[in-house]
């Protein structure tokens, strides 16, 4: 069947090539991070000191955990702008609680914050999944609501370090095997999410719902449950991180983490999560978060003014998006040209 062979090798080739590109994306990101690190190290040999790496990873931990939740949300074709407010609200309530009950066990404080986050996220998810409100609007609306609540519960006052019990502040300073607890927490989350997204039915169905919601519904998958779930997870992670945040900075304020959602989204976009839904991988998201964290850490070390940070971060995001689009175009065009006419 000579005609049959005309097309088929090409399909195989193109699919494996596409796979290569997507892997190339992560490898490229990894190499880029290494280059940034090496250049920084040349300018300032302190960069690769254990102390600094410990700092870098600790500072990236919160961002990287939040990015996991955002990845799930984006995979279902959504977006969550409310996470900064959720984080602030949970942090504030937890801080107020521990300052009133200094004997509260830190684990209970964490549980409280996470619970508040889950409730907040579920409300956003309710709007999106059940009432059909577009994610950007639902989360924008709840962003205002949670921010307002944060100010109200705090009575527009700060909770500062002296009001927090030592046990609570110790969450941030605890070390396991000489490594900060936050790094361990992030690693545990990454392992859990890797397992969740690759080896559980629920995890894979989140991808299915994002990849083709209509056919998921026809298959009998209750799409709204999964959509609700991802916002609840996002909320839970935000609440959890709210506690970590407050403990780390030893202060809770009304405007905590205001605008932080954009950093989290940026980490996901850098990590190759497709904003149109359906694809995104835990490894990529980790790299995206680490790249942002590395930049934050490296710029001051090479005596570059902190004021350059935004511009550099933004440019890297833009370039990553454009390069990605261009590579994909070239691949498509290459496939076309190979078509025999």
């Amino acid at each position: 069947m000579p005609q049959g062979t005309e097309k088929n090798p090409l399909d195989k080739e193109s699919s494996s090539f596409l796979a290569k590109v997507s892997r190339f994306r992560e490898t490229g990101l990894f190499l880029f991070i290494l280059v940034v690190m090496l250049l920084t190290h040349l300018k300032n040999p302190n960069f690769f000191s254990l102390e600094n790496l410990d700092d870098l990873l600790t500072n990236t931990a919160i961002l990287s955990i939040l990015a996991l939740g955002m990845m799930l949300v984006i995979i279902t074709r959504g977006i969550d702008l409310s996470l900064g407010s959720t984080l602030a609200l949970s942090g504030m309530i937890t801080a107020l609680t521990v300052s009133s009950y200094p004997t509260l066990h830190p684990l209970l404080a964490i549980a409280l914050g996470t619970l508040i986050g889950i409730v907040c996220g579920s409300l956003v998810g309710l709007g999106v999944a059940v009432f059909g409100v577009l994610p950007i609007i639902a989360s924008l609306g709840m962003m205002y609501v949670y921010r307002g609540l944060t100010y109200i519960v705090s009575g527009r006052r700060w909770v500062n370090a002296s009001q927090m019990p030592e046990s609570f502040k110790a969450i941030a300073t605890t070390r396991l095997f000489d490594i900060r607890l936050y790094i361990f927490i992030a690693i545990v989350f990454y392992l859990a999410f890797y397992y969740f997204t690759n080896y559980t039915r629920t995890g894979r169905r989140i991808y299915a719902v994002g990849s083709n919601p209509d056919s998921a519904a026809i298959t009998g998958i209750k799409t709204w449950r999964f959509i609700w779930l991802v916002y609840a997870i996002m909320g839970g992670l935000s609440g959890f991180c709210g506690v970590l945040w407050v403990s780390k900075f030893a202060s809770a304020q009304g405007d905590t983490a205001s605008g932080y959602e954009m950093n989290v989204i940026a980490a996901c976009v850098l990590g190759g999560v497709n904003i149109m839904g359906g694809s995104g991988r835990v490894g990529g998201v980790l790299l995206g978060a680490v790249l942002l964290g590395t930049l934050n850490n490296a710029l001051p070390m090479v005596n570059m003014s902190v004021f350059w940070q935004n511009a550099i971060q933004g440019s890297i995001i833009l370039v990553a998006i454009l390069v990605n689009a261009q590579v994909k175009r070239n691949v498509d065009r290459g496939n076309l040209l190979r078509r025999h006419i």
Partner: protein
Amino acid sequence: MPGPHEIAADRPFAWKAFFFQWEWILLLVFLAIQVMNFHLSPYYLDLAHLREEAADLAWWPWLTSLIPAVLANWADVTISFLDKSFIVFPMAFIIIMAEIDISVGSTVALSAVLMGLSYKAGLSMPLAMVVALAVGSVCGFINGLILVKYRELAPMIVTLATMIIYRGIALILLEDQAVGKFPAWFQNICWGYLGPVPIMLLAFCVTALVFGIILHRTTFGRQVYAIGSNPVASLFSGVPVARIRVTAYTLAGLMSGVTAIFLTSRMGSTRPNVATGYELDVIAMVVLGGVSTAGGRGRIIGTVISVFTIGFLRYGLGLRNISAEYLLIIIGLLLIFAVMLPNLRPLYTSWYSARHPRRQ
């Protein structure tokens, strides 16, 4: 009754459709807020006091004599919230096209900073204001250009990147400093009056009128709706999609420049972190005004009412010292409610039919 091949050309006035419009609900909310403001604050249109002053007048003449006072009071109030509302109109265009621009807040900051710096560098103030407008337009133009060159990219992501970049440039230029010391007349742009009307309110009304005419009466506006309803079919119908998109984003930039001028005039100085979060406030006002984020639907009148609704709400709560936090909550809930409302009926129908299956 038309025959099989007759097709009616005239359109009878649809009473039902006329009354079932989001704008009416919005107007009711607006009026409710006015009533609330009267009740909340002794300072807001102090009627009792005014009545005492004019005790010799009968009720009716007194009430009519009050109208200018009420209007003047309203006009004054508008100064407190109108600065960012200029961006609402081009944002409405963009959202009607089912797109979004979240870089406008940063564009405001960059325009304001460059205006301040160019004045400091010796440019005359009017020229510096032109710089602000030009910078804004360029920022918007860049957004539009990237989006039409790479049509596969989501506007949300591209403008997220430029949002970080534009503010980043402002930060590089001015670090944590502020620029100010503008000429005395410059603050009149925001605070000044033309007769009894604040200049800013006048500018807002003119802008609203111009954008309203563009959207509802011109081919450009029609094509904006077309792109929002079906971008592919619009392209196939010869609509210059790329040109219209670039124009809309450029307009958003230009109006961000306008906002930069009014904002700077109001505050007397500027710094790189001004106008943070404006993009979300603007989007909220547009959506509350009845513009559908799914594209193809929405009107300028709705966004105008929504601007005033939110503005007066904020002002009224401020009067009573109920501060921004409740406002945030109310705006947030209103926003979700506005979008949810059209979804409720089908939701109820399906819920009802699930509960009450048709008998066999």
